[in-house]
């Protein structure tokens, strides 16, 4: 697509920008600041605050010839209107002359600021935004030094209005810019807040129950240009300038949002350094300038007093505290005798460096490298993922995205947001799911199937199968076959491991058969439940269908960052029977309780490392808290296998994560060339945020610590699809009336890294199965029912939900329940 460029002059400077650019953005790109409050570069302009008024002149055009009328010097004659115009709503035009520094403009800015301040409480000294406040900064720069408004005539309004339990509104501070309202309706499609009343009484209200019911609410506090919106998490917590900022990566889902921990030493915490808040860090290729509320608020597990503090060793049937040496020696000895009858089971919370060292130790033993995940197919993602240079933020006309078996809004929120925006830019979306999701509304095709039909549904899109398929499938198949680029995202809605693995294979086959491999913005993505499951696949860990059997048979099982016993009674049984159990963990999980040796580990804020996102982007996180901070005895996960390795004569890096990355790059082709310096590289991004630009893009942090690097392709050829199609297990129905149970993934689950964040408790999913009211009646289900798993039954609460398809029961994951069947 050729973009037409438009030339104009701003304050005497010649500027060329693409047609359609707004004057305010054109000026910003030329380094000229025009103050704004209501305008935000990610939102449609509204021209409400009138802060951006400038003089705009346009060349006079001779109607007869359609040419510019020239003056004596041969320059176009410029005509200025009688009024100033809003730079935020006016698109550039050829030959336009913009003046942002005339007396008239300077006076107008002062006037509008004086107006805004007439009803502003000016309580900067106690305001959370003080120090990073656009109103404060713009007033210093453009405002009048004194106000002529009598202070006693100010209007006083409520200062602590909860818009729900997460976000508070200070009505006095609100300047009615509407950014929050527009963010919620335009950008994230949760129009749960709005304006009510009029004039000076105009106020933000929430319409939802619970209040401000949106998983995006925290972002409004970043773009609010004053301290009117604050999170319950941070309000009155600290002043911005007292805190240090440290770059990190969210590991709650596959997106890998870039974030910043703001920390400070605190008397309240006995002089320790603590995390005060989580802020987004700009990465326009990943999370832009946003975070979901889970990423923003579910960090309190790091500071939980339930954290494991020292190694534990089982003595006389009890786990008792022990020294590191004792624990390491014991494990070393057991490893020696276990030999290759050793299983390493790792979770997706670990960093690449952790996974590498744990993997190396396992390989040296000749053991099995197993990945703990409900989803399979990461080996296919390695081969089929959209290659380097791909960016969901660039999808538009010609792009097609197929989302299968995935409640993306819940499973990978930022991907949902970016796809929704891609649709706005002209991309087409095909949604195949068993139940309605928040993506349906943006889809060109919605294909509904019954749970269990996921793989068959995708197979129907394949060119060889499409003839004779139902109309919607034929039409969707045509759309995706003809797409310039095609991205296929699969999730875990209703899928167990085997089904998920089979689905991934068919999705990959679809990409292959429709010629959408090896192309930028085409490929396969998986909405993993953790931040680094893809890293596990890349580093050679694999899921297995017979995990319980393998755990049971092993002489030694080593579990890192996973709680199989807590999640699954069958695995609990297996773990209990295993020869010797080593666990490295943050908490005393169910699995840890059964262990023979438990090692305490550090959270990511206490150490360095990197994750591989679902898009195969390797991103670094940095230590935010000083060493020996929260848990002085704990070690980074990668150090533990290295310390054991040392005793076994296996050389592994135990100290520097950067060095581990060099070993990874040397061994794994996809990582070739990656090192910590490259991961730290940055580039200029649009829109500008933070620092002196926070009035523009908001308080999202500027990315100075690295945009990350996408792994190299390891493509090609039909052989990519090996191994052969996966068989799935048929499960025996326990009784004629039993309902099949399908697992679903929700954002606010009850996992170990979420529960310690008390603020989110009201929003967490309840441990219950969901059944459609009609189905419940047909199957005589009361408020409680029997959930059956591997022949055993537990009592479970039944929640009636209209959104659940008939003849099935849905069970949210990570609520401490598991089952295949439901009976009255």
């Amino acid at each position, binding site marked *: 697509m050729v973009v037409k460029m438009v030339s104009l002059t701003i304050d005497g400077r010649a500027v060329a920008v693409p047609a359609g650019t707004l004057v305010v953005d054109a000026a910003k790109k030329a380094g000229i600041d025009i103050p704004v409050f209501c305008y935000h570069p990610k939102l449609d302009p509204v021209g409400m605050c009138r802060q951006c008024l400038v003089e705009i002149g346009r060349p006079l055009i001779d109607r007869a010839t359609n040419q510019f009328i020239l003056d004596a010097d041969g320059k176009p004659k410029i005509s200025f209107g009688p009024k*100033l115009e809003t730079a935020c709503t006016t698109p550039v035009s050829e030959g336009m002359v913009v003046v942002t520094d005339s007396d008239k403009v300077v006076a107008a800015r002062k006037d509008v600021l004086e107006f*805004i301040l007439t009803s502003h409480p000016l309580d900067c000294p106690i305001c959370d935004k003080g120090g990073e406040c656009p109103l404060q900064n713009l007033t210093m720069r453009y405002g009048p030094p004194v106000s002529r408004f009598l202070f006693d005539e100010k209007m006083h309004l409520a200062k602590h209005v909860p818009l729900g339990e997460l976000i508070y509104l200070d009505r006095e501070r609100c300047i009615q810019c509407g950014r929050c309202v527009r963010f919620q309706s335009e950008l994230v499609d949760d129009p749960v807040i709005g304006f009510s009343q*009029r*004039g000076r009484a105009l106020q933000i209200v929430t319409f939802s129950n619970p209040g401000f019911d949106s998983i995006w609410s925290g972002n409004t506090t970043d773009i609010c240009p004053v301290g009117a919106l604050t999170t319950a998490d941070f309000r009155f917590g600290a002043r911005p300038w007292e805190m240090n900022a440290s770059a990190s990566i969210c590991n709650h889902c596959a997106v890998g949002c870039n974030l910043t921990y703001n920390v400070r030493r605190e008397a309240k915490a006995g002089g320790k350094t603590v995390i005060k808040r989580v802020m987004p860090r700009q990465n326009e290729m990943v999370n832009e300038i946003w975070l979901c509320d889970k990423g923003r608020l579910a960090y309190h597990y790091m500071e939980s007093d339930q954290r494991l503090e020292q190694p534990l060793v089982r003595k006389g049937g009890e786990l008792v505290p022990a020294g590191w040496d004792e624990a390491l020696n014991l494990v070393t000895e057991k490893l020696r005798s276990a030999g290759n009858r050793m299983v390493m089971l790792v979770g997706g919370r670990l960093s690449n460096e952790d996974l590498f060292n744990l993997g190396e130790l396992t390989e040296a033993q000749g053991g099995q490298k197993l990945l703990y995940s409900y989803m399979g197919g990461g080996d296919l993602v390695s081969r089929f993922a959209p290659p380097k240079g791909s960016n969901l933020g660039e999808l538009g006309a010609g792009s097609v995205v197929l989302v299968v078996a995935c409640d993306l809004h819940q499973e990978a929120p930022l991907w949902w947001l970016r796809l929704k925006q891609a649709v706005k830019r002209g991309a087409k979306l095909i949604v195949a799911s068993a139940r309605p999701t928040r993506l349906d509304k943006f889809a060109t095709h919605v294909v509904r199937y019954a749970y269990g039909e996921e793989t068959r549904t995708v197979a129907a899109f394949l060119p060889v199968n499409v003839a004779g398929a139902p109309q919607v499938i034929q039409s969707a198949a045509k759309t995706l076959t003809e797409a310039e680029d095609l991205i296929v995202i699969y999730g875990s809605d209703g899928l167990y491991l085997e089904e998920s693995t089979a689905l991934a294979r068919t999705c990959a086959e679809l990409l292959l058969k429709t010629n959408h491999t090896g192309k930028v913005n085409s490929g396969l993505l998986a909405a993993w439940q953790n931040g680094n499951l893809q890293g596990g696949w890349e580093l050679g860990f694999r899921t297995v269908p017979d995990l319980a059997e393998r755990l049971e048979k092993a002489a030694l099982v080593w579990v890192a960052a996973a709680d199989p016993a807590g999640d699954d009674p069958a695995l609990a049984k297996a773990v209990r029977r295993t020869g010797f159990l080593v666990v490295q963990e943050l908490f005393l999980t169910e699995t840890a309780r059964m262990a023979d040796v438990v090692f305490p580990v550090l959270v990511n804020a206490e150490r360095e490392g990197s994750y591989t996102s679902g898009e195969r982007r390797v991103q670094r996180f940095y230590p935010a808290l000083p060493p020996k901070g929260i848990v002085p005895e704990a070690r980074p996960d990668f150090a533990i296998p290295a310390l054991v390795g040392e005793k076994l004569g296996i050389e592994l890096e135990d100290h520097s994560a950067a060095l581990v990355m060099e070993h990874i790059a040397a061994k794994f082709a996809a990582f070739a060339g990656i090192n910590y310096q490259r991961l730290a590289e940055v580039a200029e991004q649009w829109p500008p945020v933070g620092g002196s630009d926070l009035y523009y893009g908001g308080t999202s942090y500027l990315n100075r610590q690295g945009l990350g690097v996408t792994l190299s392709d390891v493509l090609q050829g039909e052989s990519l699809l090996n191994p052969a199609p996966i068989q799935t297990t048929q499960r025996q129905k326990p009784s004629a009336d039993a309902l099949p149970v399908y697992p679903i993934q929700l954002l606010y689950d009850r996992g170990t890294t979420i529960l310690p964040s008390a603020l989110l408790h009201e929003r967490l999913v309840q441990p219950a199965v969901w059944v459609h009211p009609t189905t419940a009646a047909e199957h005589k289900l009361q408020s409680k029912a029997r959930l059956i798993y591997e022949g055993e039954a537990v009592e479970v609460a039944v929640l009636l939900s209209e959104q659940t398809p008939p003849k099935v029961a849905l069970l949210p994951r990570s609520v401490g329940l598991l089952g295949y069947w439901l009976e009255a």
Partner: protein
Amino acid sequence: MKEHILLRHRDIPDLHRLEVYQKHGGFETFRRAVTTLKPEEVLNEVKASGLRGRGGAGFPTGVKWSFLPNNLWPHYVVANADESEPGTFKDREILESNPYQFLEGLMLASYAVQANLSYVYLRGEFWQIARHLDACIAELEAAGLLGEHLFGTDYSLRIYTHLGAGAYICGEETALLESLEGKLGQPRLRPPFPAVYGLFGKPTVINNVETLANVPPIVERGASWYRTYGTEKSPGVKIFCLSGCVNHPGNYELPLGTTFRELIFEYGGGVPAGRKVKAIMAAGASSSLIAADENALDTPMDYESVQEKLGAPLGSASVIVIDDSVNIAWLVSKTIEFFKHESCGKCTPCREGTFWMNRIAQRIEHGKSAPEDVQLLEAVASQIQNKCLCALGEFSIMAVLSGIQKFRTDFEAKVNG
């Protein structure tokens, strides 16, 4: 005038009844238009008549209709029956007493732009009128004058009424559209204009009730007949709403170009004995105050003359007469109070400026001000000027600036006790 064109009910009893309206030729024009005229023929007749919008802005009606693009459908017509300008009560009389002429005008407009769905947006206080209009619409449907395939043609039309919830700003056409869509009544950013992006994002014509009531006689009798009234640039008749300090306030249907003197003294019976006309507000509360000297009284009331000779817009021609018993500072504090109360709050200068002006005006009004307050009031008003998102904010300072400039002594009298 011998014969009324808009307020015909004053000549014909019971004109608000369908059979009476029909007996006097009612809906024949609509039937003739739908069955024998092309939509553009209706449009061209209205264009040729030079009819200008009676809602305040005076924009040529036919030209407005012709802006609707023919590649975007559906089209809508919305009748603006919000009539909220203080001192304006003409639409109400039409709606109450001559509703069918208004409806026929709305129907002709709808046919001209090929709208199949049209709305009447009424201020909330007009709920009784709305009920009455609903009954009229039901009768028209029963009589086959509204509905599907009218007169056996392909043309169908339905009309619905909608009540506002008590906001002056909802008379502004884009705020009206927002309100009609069920949203908070705040003006939209323009462009795009309603002719392209109107109701539900579709091309829309918005016309005042009085404007539409002019349409049936124009289509019936022709543009050249209509142009025998009024002036070259402001043709036709206008209902002048006369109120304030006059002996006979009321609606007066007169040709555009009638002078203030004629209206106030000949028709309105002059001011109470012993008083003198001091000032005139020609456009309700949104007026720039006119100092009522001889020159002003002799100015013809058409869109050009009032603006050019007196520097004040004619607006909706809601003529409020102020006599010499009135202190202008008091009057101005009333208009400010009104605009402060009605500011929608969307844009800063109007929201904050009217609030601030109100504080100052109250101080002046109650004798609690310092002498600088008059200058401050003037400064704040000028500071609002030309910065607002919609015309309400600009209206809010008209009486303030003109009042201080022309009647400064009234303010000084208040300030000095």
